[in-house]
């Protein structure tokens, strides 16, 4: 199994400030990785750096051996999709139009686009919502739209930033279930705060503190009592 994503010695941050230091990580082409840690530890920064949204001070991020910095933004978008945290939906667009935006990086032609869009609508059970104005649907429903968009983007890697933070229990579990079902096809890396959910659904946990990786192991090990105590101070 060749390496899909390899992060080597990555240090990145904002302006002159170095938030994450010397991050090393590698993964094959499928799996569900949870990124955890206290506030300010750099997990969102790490996601952003991998996505190419931040300055990298040293180190690199390679996707199948290719440095993400040397890819154009469209090529990057064909390899990685991003589902943000609470994102405010723009008014005047239907759910289907938002999902269709995921097809932008591909210059695939009308039929291929239609197929991908319809598949993701079906998979995320959005048929009855596809023509609704996204500024009028609930937060949970919009989250499903965002996941559908990421699906339509047809990328090998999916990056998520606290996708369940503002959802109630039912949607939280639904979302995790859907992500788990994608595990065999994609590499999913998500920032999570809920240790119970992570224990149940993820197969690898990266624990961070103060900008470095403290643990990189299956949930049972990484989320053991003493480690949690040390990292989170509880």
């Amino acid at each position, binding site marked *: 199994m060749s390496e899909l994503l390899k992060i080597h010695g990555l240090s990145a941050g904002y302006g002159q400030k170095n938030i994450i230091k010397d991050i090393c990580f590698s993964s094959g082409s499928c799996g569900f990785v949870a990124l955890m840690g206290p506030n300010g530890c750099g997990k969102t920064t790490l996601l952003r750096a991998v996505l*190419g*949204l931040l300055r990298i001070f040293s180190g690199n991020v390679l996707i199948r051996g290719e440095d993400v910095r040397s890819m154009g933004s469209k090529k990057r978008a064909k390899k990685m999709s991003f589902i*943000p945290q609470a*994102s405010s939906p*723009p008014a*005047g667009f239907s759910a289907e139009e938002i999902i269709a935006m995921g097809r*932008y*990086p591909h210059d695939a032609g009308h039929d291929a686009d239609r197929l991908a869009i319809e598949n993701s609508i079906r998979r995320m059970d959005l048929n009855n919502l596809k*023509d609704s104005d996204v500024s009028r649907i609930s937060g949970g429903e919009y989250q499903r739209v965002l996941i559908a968009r990421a699906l339509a983007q047809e990328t090998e890697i999916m990056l998520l930033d606290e996708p369940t933070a503002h959802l109630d229990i039912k949607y939280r579990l639904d979302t995790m279930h859907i992500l788990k079902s994608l595990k065999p096809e994609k590499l999913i890396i998500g920032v999570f705060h809920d240790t119970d959910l992570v224990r149940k659904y993820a197969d690898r946990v990266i624990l961070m503190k103060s900008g470095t990786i403290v643990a990189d192991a299956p949930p049972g090990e990484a989320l053991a009592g003493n480690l949690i105590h040390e990292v989170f101070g509880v």
Partner: protein
Amino acid sequence: MRTKIIHVYFLLLLLLAASLAAGSLFGSVAVSPFDDSRISEMIFWGIRIPRVLLAAIVGAMLSVSGAVLQGVLKNPLSDPYILGISAGGALGAAGSIAAGLPLFVVCAVSFISALAAVGMVYSFSRTSSGVRPEVLVLAGVALSSLLGAALVAVILASDSLQSVYFWLFGSFSFASPVFVKIAAAAAAAGISVSIFFSRQLNILLLGDEEAASLGVNTSAVRIAMLSAASLLSAVSVAMCGIIGFVGLIIPHIIRLAIGGNNVFLIPASGLLGASFLVTADLLSRTLISPAELPVGVVTAFIGAPFFIYLLRRRTDV
């Protein structure tokens, strides 16, 4: 939804044809293209038609400019007038006219000063989390007042009160075939850039991070779109003075009908804007004929109440 869009476009084209016809056939003097006399021909083709065409082109330019600004700045209250871009363009244009520079140079200077105004407004209101709409509008109002004052000073120093009238309220009375040609060229450039980037503009509305993750080069799109919007409003102002409300109202009306998807919104705004301004110009030259109302007064009379209505109606403005 697709069929609705087709219906709306059909209606817009019909409206444009009707207003162009009305604008050409009505005026302070009764002429038609079928008249024999040399004078009628001269009036119809030399005065009436250039004027109607210029009004249509400028109407399209201002509406597209407004639609683009509303998208790029994620602020439904944006238009070149409110943001001070028109004032900036007018200042550059008035200054270069006072210096006796030829028309083409006047338009170029107008474009550059409009860009400078956009740049200033944009940088004043930018924070690390993006552009804040309230700050943007306030910055625009402040800049607009400042530049407007400078504009009046420049005009009074170099010219007469009459010119102030022209610059601040607009007029199509200077329309000529040359103006029409330059306006058409600027419109073609600015509107085609806007349409080219319209899909990316949609994605930009999601927010910079999401847009970047979808492969959109956010800064390139912004620069291209802001430049297009500036070009469109600068050339309009250089030829016809400041005409307010068109860029603000027209995209909103279109949105009410077909939603916010810029791929359809931008061209539709152009069509409706053209019809609107041709009609406004017709009113401005017939209401108190043979005297003329400045067209900006007509657009304000129609636009301001409509704007208030829009504010009251929309809960998510």
